[in-house]
């Protein structure tokens, strides 16, 4: 494959933009690696899981449920529910992927995580951005995830309690630091308010990660149904 200079540059910039948050990803990876070793997963099973599933919170639930005899159907169902937000995240990437081939989409979509998605969309709103920026970020997050989990599996967790160092907060911090790039103007006030309230309420009422789907859909529905020019006005 021959890279154009824009592709190469976006790939590199995507990688470096995600380096800091990837340090937290690796720290949490080492906690998962330790858990997985205790549950009897081999290092190569864990590596294949990282490379193929590549979803942090879903993998924590998988390893948590990892008791013989393996409840395969229950685990897969739990993963489906936790990762339901990727349906929305995938949909929201539509403008970025405009004009790309099906094989390009199929290849690049695998390495989409919350962190590199947010980084990419924030940049996309400010300057011309290609899917290579997304891929560069995905490679960074995936590498950190594999490095952290395998380290934790072989040597034990590097940091047994990441919360002590505020590392759990790094995910909130990176999304918050990007929030103004997503702001498009007054038409966002109501959708954002609805999203915030619905996400907070559903987080306290529902298990797992449903709150992201509920908040995201409710906020976007508010934008769709209540246009700035009046209710139901197309």
């Amino acid at each position, binding site marked *: 494959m021959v890279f154009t200079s824009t592709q190469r540059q976006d790939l590199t910039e995507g990688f470096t933009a995600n380096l800091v948050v990837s340090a937290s990803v690796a720290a949490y990876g080492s906690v998962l690696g330790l858990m997985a070793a205790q549950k009897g997963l081999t290092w190569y099973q864990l590596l294949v899981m990282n490379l193929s599933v590549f979803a942090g919170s879903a993998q924590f639930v998988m390893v948590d449920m990892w008791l013989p005899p393996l409840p395969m159907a229950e685990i897969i169902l739990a993963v489906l529910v936790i990762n339901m937000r990727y349906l929305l*995240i995938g949909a929201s*990437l539509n403008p970025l992927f405009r004009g790309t081939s099906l094989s390009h989409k199929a290849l690049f979509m695998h390495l989409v995580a919350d962190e590199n998605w947010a980084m990419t969309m924030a940049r996309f709103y400010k300057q011309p951005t290609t899917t290579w920026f997304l891929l560069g970020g995905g490679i960074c997050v995936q590498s950190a995830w594999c490095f952290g989990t395998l380290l934790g599996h072989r040597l034990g967790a590097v940091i047994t309690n990441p919360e002590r160092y*505020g590392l759990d907060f790094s995910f909130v*911090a*990176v999304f918050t630091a990007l929030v103004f790039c997503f702001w498009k103007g007054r038409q966002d006030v109501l959708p954002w308010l609805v999203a915030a309230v619905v*996400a907070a309420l559903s*987080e306290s009422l529902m298990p797992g990660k449903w709150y992201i789907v509920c908040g995201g859909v409710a906020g976007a529905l508010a*934008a769709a149904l209540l246009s700035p020019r009046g209710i139901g006005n197309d």
Partner: protein
Amino acid sequence: MTSQSGDMLVWLTIFGAAGVTYSLRIGGLLLAERLPKTGRFKRFMEALPGTILLSLIVPAALAAGPIGWLATLCTALCSLKTGNVFLSMMVGILIVAAGRWYGF
């Protein structure tokens, strides 16, 4: 799980989980292409990235307690003033880390 059937179950579980996750990622993208690009659908899709991001932030920030609220506010203000994502992020993490260190 050392038996051959047990090993098989391990791989089926991993690849099953990978299959549903990948289907959601690519499914969302392909589904969005088929939606109309006008009117309400357009407004829905344009608002979606922001509302997802907010849904990722708000419950987690609320759960982080008073020190987390302060950190979220400072991260947001720093980002608004400087536009520097790295700096804004570090401000938030350091406030939470310092707060926990001193037992808040």
